[in-house]
């Protein structure tokens, strides 16, 4: 579609709508995303069962190869209206399916109509004079490759991973999926924002199966990166194989009340904004609607006595090549903000609307837009210190860690844990780790060693004072 033509028609039609239909447009924004995606799925072996055992036959052929060139253009319209002597505002968004003038005008009018029925308090629609940060989002090595060359590069990556796995005792890669997306985004708004940038995403899903006699277990790694070269086949296989072997050799879970150490993927799940309740409680909408525990400067762990480290946690979309990095979000410049500062609530996640409703714009604050990478500064403790002394329960991964967004309660199944005692590690699986995310902040210790894992940059190991494992 001709983006310049679309912009010109939308701008003209938006000016004419008040006179033609009595609809007052407060602003509009256009976003075009051109995507060139390549997907390769490989099943290195096909398994059958015979006499209670799995048999594997090598399968050198990919399951599926997908090429996907696409283009999407989205139009967002902000509308104003008056009722009962008050001013109201709304917004609506839809995808444009063609650059045909009549079709576009109809879509614009429908969106304006929808926006002008929403009884919301007015809010600003653009950050005047916004300056957008420079953030590295694109893998320059693959961004300009032809489709054939990119496919070859993906194939080499998958070959290298399978080759690395072939040397692992008792471990096989049972499924390997690689997704590479190259995107070019262009934005134009009625307020004069004009922005164009490229980005890449390389995601993989690697299933490792470990077999020891009758014991068999699967572990799936799902790394995300901006650059294909940040997905290191050797490191992925090493970590995946260790994990799969651990699950295969694991025994039943213990009954336990007391300290629990979360490490690696488990620390990631516990801290990452996607899974824990902080992004909800620090969201402008939740704060404005009084659904949140947020109170600037107050401890997130409530009135419990602090028994460990104070946690500082950033939403940071500016990390170079971070999986959750961005230049803009909802047409706003991306910005790093601290949600927790020394254990206390600090800034608020939100756009212009809720920053305005909460009076933050008027205090000079800049809206943050959506959440970015989760960044937690390193703690003071050596990992070895967190793992001892005496009997320690360590959780390495969860089946699906979730907290209730309102209460912060969680009861999540442990995928792999270990009981460390007298210098030996006894792996276990299953059982529920039970606790409350906010209460945990009152008694948490963070490692000095850090990890960069799928958009989490922070302590590799954390020890929480009082959790329960129901085995």
């Amino acid at each position, binding site marked *: 579609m001709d983006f310049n033509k679309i912009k010109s028609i939308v701008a003209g039609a938006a000016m004419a709508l008040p006179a033609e239909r009595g609809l007052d447009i407060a602003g509009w924004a256009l976003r075009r995303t051109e995507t060139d995606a390549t*997907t390769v799925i490989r099943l290195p*072996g*096909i*398994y*059958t*069962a015979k006499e*209670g055992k*799995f048999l*594997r036959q090598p399968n050198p*052929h990919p*399951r*599926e*190869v*997908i*090429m*996907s*060139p*696409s283009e*999407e253009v*989205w139009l967002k319209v902000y509308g104003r209206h008056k009722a009962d002597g008050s001013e109201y505002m*709304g917004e*609506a*968004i*839809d*995808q444009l*399916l063609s650059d045909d003038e009549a079709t576009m005008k109809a879509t614009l009018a*429908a969106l304006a109509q*929808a926006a002008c*029925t929403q009884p*919301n*308090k007015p809010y600003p629609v653009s950050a005047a004079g916004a300056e957008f940060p420079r953030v590295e989002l694109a893998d320059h090595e693959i961004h300009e490759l032809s489709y054939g060359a990119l496919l070859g590069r993906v194939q080499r990556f998958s070959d290298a991973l399978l080759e690395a796995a072939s040397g692992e005792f008792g471990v096989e890669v*049972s499924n390997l*999926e690689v997704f590479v997306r190259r995107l070019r985004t262009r934005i134009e708004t009625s307020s004069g924002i004009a922005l164009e940038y490229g980005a890449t995403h390389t995601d993989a*899903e690697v*299933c490792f*199966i470990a077999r020891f006699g009758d014991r*068999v277990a*699967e572990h799936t790694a*799902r790394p995300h990166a901006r650059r294909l070269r940040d997905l290191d086949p050797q490191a992925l296989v090493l970590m995946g194989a260790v994990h799969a072997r651990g*699950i295969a050799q694991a025994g039943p879970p213990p009954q336990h009340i007391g300290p629990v150490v979360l490490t690696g993927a488990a620390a990631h799940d516990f801290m990452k904004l996607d899974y824990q309740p902080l992004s909800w409680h620090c969201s402008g*909408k939740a704060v*404005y*609607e*009084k*659904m949140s525990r947020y109170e600037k400067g107050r401890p997130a762990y409530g009135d419990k006595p602090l028994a460990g480290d104070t946690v500082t946690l950033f939403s940071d979309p500016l990390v170079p090549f971070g999986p959750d990095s961005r230049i803009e979000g909802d047409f706003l410049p991306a910005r790093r903000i601290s949600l927790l500062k020394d254990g206390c609530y600090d800034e608020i996640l939100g756009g212009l609307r*809720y920053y305005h409703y909460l009076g933050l714009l008027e205090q000079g604050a800049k809206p943050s837009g959506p959440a970015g990478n989760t960044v937690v500064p390193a703690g003071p403790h050596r990992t070895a210190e967190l793992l001892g002394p005496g009997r320690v329960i360590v959780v390495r991964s969860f*089946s*699906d860690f*979730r907290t*209730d967004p*309102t*209460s912060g*309660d969680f009861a*999540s*199944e442990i*995928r792999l844990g270990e009981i460390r005692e007298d210098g030996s590690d006894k792996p276990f699986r*299953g059982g*529920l780790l*039970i606790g409350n995310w906010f209460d945990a902040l009152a008694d948490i210790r963070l490692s000095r060693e850090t990890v960069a894992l799928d958009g989490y940059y922070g302590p590799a190991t954390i020890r929480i004072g009082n959790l329960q494992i*129901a085995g």
Partner: protein
Amino acid sequence: MGYDLPPQLEELRGFLPELVAEAEKKAPYASVLVTQSAGETVSKSPADERTNPVPPRPGIRISAWDGMTFFSASTSRINDRDYLIRLTRDLVQSIVVKQGPMPDPGDELDRHFRSEFKEDPAKVTAPERQAICRHAFEKLAAFDARIVAPRAVYVYEREYRLFGNRTRLLSSDISNVGLYLVPVASDGRKQAMNFKGSLAPGHEAAHITDETIRETAELAVQYLSADKIPAGEYRVILDPDIAGTLAHESFGHGCEVDALMRGAARASLYIGKRVGSDLVNIVDFGGLPGRHGSIFFSDDGVLATEPAVLVKDGFLQPTLMTDLYSYLHMRDRLPGLRLSANGRLETYNHPIYARMTNTYFLPLEKEKGGKTREELIADSGDAVLIEQLTSGMEDPLGWGVQLQALRGREIKAGRLTGKLYYQVGLTGYVPDVLSSIDGITNELDVSSGGTCGKGHKEYARVSSGGPYVRCRMKLG
């Protein structure tokens, strides 16, 4: 011929055979799938009311089989026929046909399918949807001052699909409507959230009574004083949605043949063997009319006319859930395997996998011992009635299962005591859980709706359900 499809799909439908023919100049088998959406969403919360169209997100996917591998090209540019022909030529130009299993394109068939509903949701206007949300919002808010953040959402989604291969030209127009109530209660110290969804193919889903709205709000307030359940193993009665999700997570994911073929499902060692008590009968059936997971044909063109029977009288069956790829590679390796209508994709540019649709336990007829819900409770001694699913997670190789529910109700000596537990996690070892099933009710309820991922991606709309099921699980 008119099918009441969006104009561009109406035009594209007749063009699919041309694309298939172009691809089959080099590939021994090809198919084309087109997807597009429509509809409207209205939501109302204290500070925000929104009315927004469901974006169409049109896309086409052309797939060519070389004997071993599917090569696919997908694009959003469905209007440009010359481009689609060029894309198809580019796709198949380097294909080298290999010796391998060949798909059967099926009998000749040209059909259009459409959801049956009581009230056409396309005839409902935006102001009518807004009025429904505003009414529900106000009723929730008015129930108690502790309801601090009520939310009401009306979702109307239309899903169009076209499928073509050399013998088949299929199209469908599937409608789903949901009205969701989400009251959040707070006493200034603790917060709690309740959830109630009403789903149907048509606007009839939106007819929730004021009494139901009141009960939904009342539960949110009750959660504020509810206890956490003491961790331990319990006799539990699972409501139909949670029971169905137990089926879904245990022998649903575990019976997706693409999981079996990559060695990731222990079920392959147990085909024909006992995996649960005699009361365990689990099926997946996309053709069950008007459910949230219902389809008319799979994304590789298989009509959803018969259920995949997964577990029968406690024994795992060979009639598992297949997509075309897994069926082609496994049909000679797994005797009894059939091509089922379970090949589904998240969006047009994603792979097709073996996926569930509507997965459920079969109820037990009254004559064979099936009880009513009340009889089952009365027969249970001390137990916990588990209601309102929030999530589930599978482990088809390790046979673990994790379920999360909003509430548990205490049962003592066969009677509900009124004691409520808020947010209950359930876990167990699948064979132990299914073997412990010793009570089932006699009515089928498949009225829930949600999405299911394959692991943590590839989301597809599904439903689960069945009767109330009594078993033993670990709670926490």
